C-alpha cells in the first residue's frame, strides 16, 4: 500500500509526480494524482441506495444524477485547466494548463506566493469557478456536464468549505449558522450542530450570535458548518490566516480529525508553512502553474 501523500498516476498518466503546467515533458494528459488510493470510504451501497441516501440528504430529484458522486472515488482531477480573466482591456491568466489530481483520504496543501493561482486552483477544483480551458472531474463527475444547479448540489452535499473569513450569518446563532451547512435543516440537524459545536469546545456558545464570539470561535463555527454535511472533500482557503497560532492549530486539528475519521480529502491553500507541514503532498504554485509537488517527510 502506498504511503500517505505519495503521488499516484491515474489512468492517463504514466508515472511520477509532475505538474503538467510546469513540466511539459510529462506530456498532454499526464495528471499526477495525490493522496492514498485504495482507501475509499467504506459502506457505499448500490446506486439505488446511494440515490435514496442522497435524496434524504436534501438533493431531491437530482439525487440520482449525482449518485455517482457518492459511490465514486474521493478524487478531484484537473485536466490541463486554465483560467483567464479579462482585465483592463487585456487578458490575465490566473492558471495555465494545470494538470493535477487529488485523491482521498489525505491532506494536500497548496502553497505559493500571492497571485500564483493557488486559490484559483482551489475554486476550480471545488466547482466555484469554471475553467476557461480544460476540464475538472470531481467524485467521478465531469463538472462541465453538470448543470449550474447540479454543481451547487454537488458542493452542498459532498464538499465542505472553510474560507479565510468565517462569513457567518450575522443574525443567526452559532448553532443556527452550523445548521445552515446541513443538507436538511430539521430538528435532527439542530441536534447534530450542537453536538458538533460541543466537540469543538463551543458547547456554551450555541446560542451566541457571531459578534459575541472571538475570531477563533467564529472560524471554528465556520468549520463546523463545513462539516455538517459530512463532506467527502473539504476545501479550505487560507483558513488560519486571520487566527492566532493557538486558534490556527486548534482549527487544523479539527480538520485533520475529520478527514481521518471520515476518510475525506482535505485540500488546504495556505501561505503558512506550519499549516501545510503535515500535508501528505504540497503543490507549489508559481505564476499560474505548478512549480513543484513535494511530499514532506
Amino acid at each position: 500500500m502506498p504511503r500517505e501523500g505519495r503521488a499516484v498516476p491515474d489512468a492517463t498518466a504514466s508515472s511520477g509526480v509532475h505538474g503538467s503546467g510546469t513540466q511539459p515533458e510529462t506530456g498532454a494528459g499526464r495528471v499526477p494524482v495525490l493522496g492514498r488510493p485504495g482507501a475509499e470510504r467504506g459502506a457505499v451501497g448500490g446506486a439505488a441506495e446511494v440515490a435514496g441516501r442522497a435524496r434524504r440528504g436534501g438533493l431531491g430529484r437530482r439525487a440520482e444524477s449525482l449518485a455517482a458522486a457518492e459511490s465514486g472515488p474521493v478524487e478531484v482531477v484537473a485536466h490541463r485547466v486554465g483560467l483567464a480573466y479579462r482585465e483592463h482591456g487585456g487578458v490575465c491568466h490566473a492558471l495555465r494548463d494545470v494538470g493535477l489530481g487529488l485523491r482521498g483520504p489525505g491532506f494536500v496543501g497548496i502553497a505559493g506566493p500571492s497571485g500564483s493561482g493557488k486559490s484559483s486552483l482551489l475554486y476550480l477544483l471545488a466547482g466555484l469557478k469554471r475553467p476557461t480551458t480544460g476540464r475538472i472531474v470531481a467524485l467521478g463527475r465531469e463538472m462541465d456536464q453538470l448543470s449550474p444547479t447540479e454543481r451547487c448540489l454537488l458542493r452542498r452535499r459532498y464538499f465542505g468549505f472553510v474560507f479565510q473569513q468565517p462569513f457567518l450569518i450575522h443574525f443567526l446563532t452559532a448553532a443556527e449558522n452550523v445548521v445552515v451547512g446541513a443538507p436538511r435543516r430539521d430538528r435532527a440537524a439542530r441536534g447534530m450542530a450542537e453536538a458538533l459545536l460541543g466537540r469543538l469546545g463551543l458547547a456554551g456558545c450555541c446560542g451566541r450570535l457571531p459578534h459575541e464570539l472571538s475570531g477563533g470561535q467564529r472560524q471554528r463555527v465556520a468549520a463546523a458548518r463545513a462539516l455538517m454535511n459530512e463532506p467527502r472533500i473539504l476545501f479550505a482557503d487560507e483558513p488560519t490566516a486571520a487566527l492566532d497560532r493557538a486558534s490556527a492549530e486548534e482549527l487544523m486539528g479539527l480538520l485533520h480529525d475529520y478527514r481521518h475519521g471520515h476518510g475525506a480529502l482535505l485540500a488546504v491553500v495556505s501561505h503558512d508553512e506550519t499549516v501545510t507541514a503535515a500535508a501528505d503532498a504540497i503543490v507549489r504554485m508559481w505564476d499560474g502553474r505548478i512549480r513543484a509537488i513535494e511530499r514532506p517527510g
Partner: protein
Amino acid sequence: MFGVLGFPLYLLRNRGRALALLVVVVLAVMEVSTVALLTGSMLGDLRLTMVAPFQYFTEIVASDALVPPSIAQSVAAQPQTKLLLPMIPEVIRVNTLIGPGTRNVFAVPTAFMTWFLRRIGERLIIGRLPAASVAEIALPRRVMENRHLRLGDMVGQQVDPNEWMPGEFRIVGILGGTLNAGITSYEAMRSFTALAAVPGVASYAAFAQPGSRRAMDAYLSTLPLDQVRVYTEGAEEQAYHQDVRMLDWLLWSINLVTVGVLAVAMGLLNNLYYMQRMDEYGILAAIGFTHGLLLRRAFAEVLAITSISWSAGLGLTVALRGVLARWLFAPHGISLPSLDLRDIVFTLPIPLLISVFTLATVLRRLTRLDPVSVVERRD
C-alpha cells in the same frame, strides 16, 4: 420558508430594519386609504343624490314651466306605467367630510306618501308623516343627526338662508332607509315655488309596472325634448360617470405617482439592505445553495414584509377610523365609511409595486452574484 433561513426568523432578528419598512408602508397605506376615504365619501354623496333615486322611478320635468297635460295623460295610459305621481324634487343641506353636501327631499301628494316611501325603500321610524297641504317634513335619521335637528324643529330657506330647500317646514317624523331621502307634502312645497299660483304640474315621478322599467323608459325617451326632459336611471348613471371620470382619473394618477415614488424609495432601501447582505448570500451560494433557492428566499422576505406592513396599515386604518368615527365625526353627524373595496384597490399597489421594484433590482443582483467575489475577499 421557515427554519434558520426562513423569513420569520430574519424579520424577528432584524426588527429594526423590518420596523423601518413597516412604519413607512403603514403610513403610506394610511395616507392613501385616507385619500380613498375622502374621495369615496365625495363620490358616494354624489351617487346618493344624483343616481340612487332613479333606480326606483324615472323623473319627467317640464322643459319650460309645466308638463303638458296631454303628455302626462299619454304616459299614464301606457301599460308599462304603474303610476305617474306629481313630485317636486328638492334637497336639504348636510355636512359631509369634505364640506357642505345635500340629501334629497321628495314632495309628493300626501295620499301617496306611504306608498312612495315603501317604493323607495324608506320607512317612518319615529313621529308621523307630514299632513296634507301642511308645511311639515319627515327627514332621514342621519340628516337629523347630521344637522342636530329634533322633532318640531323648523327647516327651510325662511329659517336658514344657507338652506337649499325653499319655505319653512316643521319636522314631524324621522325616516330610516338607505336612500336617506326626506319626504314632504307636494301641495305645501308647491306653495313655496314660483309656480304656486299657476295650475299644472312641473315634474312627475313615473313608476313602472314590475319588469317593465326598460320598456317604460324606452317610451319616455321618445317624448318631445322641447316639452319635457326625462331622467332615467341609465342616463343618470352615465351622467354621473362622465362627471366623476376626470376626477377619478386624476385621483388614480396622484395615487399611482405617490405609490410609485414610495415604491422606488422603499425599493432602494431594500436594495441597500440586500447589498449589506451580499456576504450572507455569497457564502450560501458558495456552499451550494442554488440561485433559485436564494431568489425564492429573497422573494419570500420581500413579500412577507410588504404583506405584513400592508395588512398592518389597513388594520390601523380601520382602528383609527373607528376611533375618529366614534369620537370626532359621529358627534357632528358625519358618518365615516369603514374599510371597503376602494381602500383595498387604492392601497394594494403599495405592496405590489414595492415588491416588484425591490425584487427586480435584488433579483438582478442575486442572479449575477459570484460567490467567489465574496469569499475571495481578504480583510
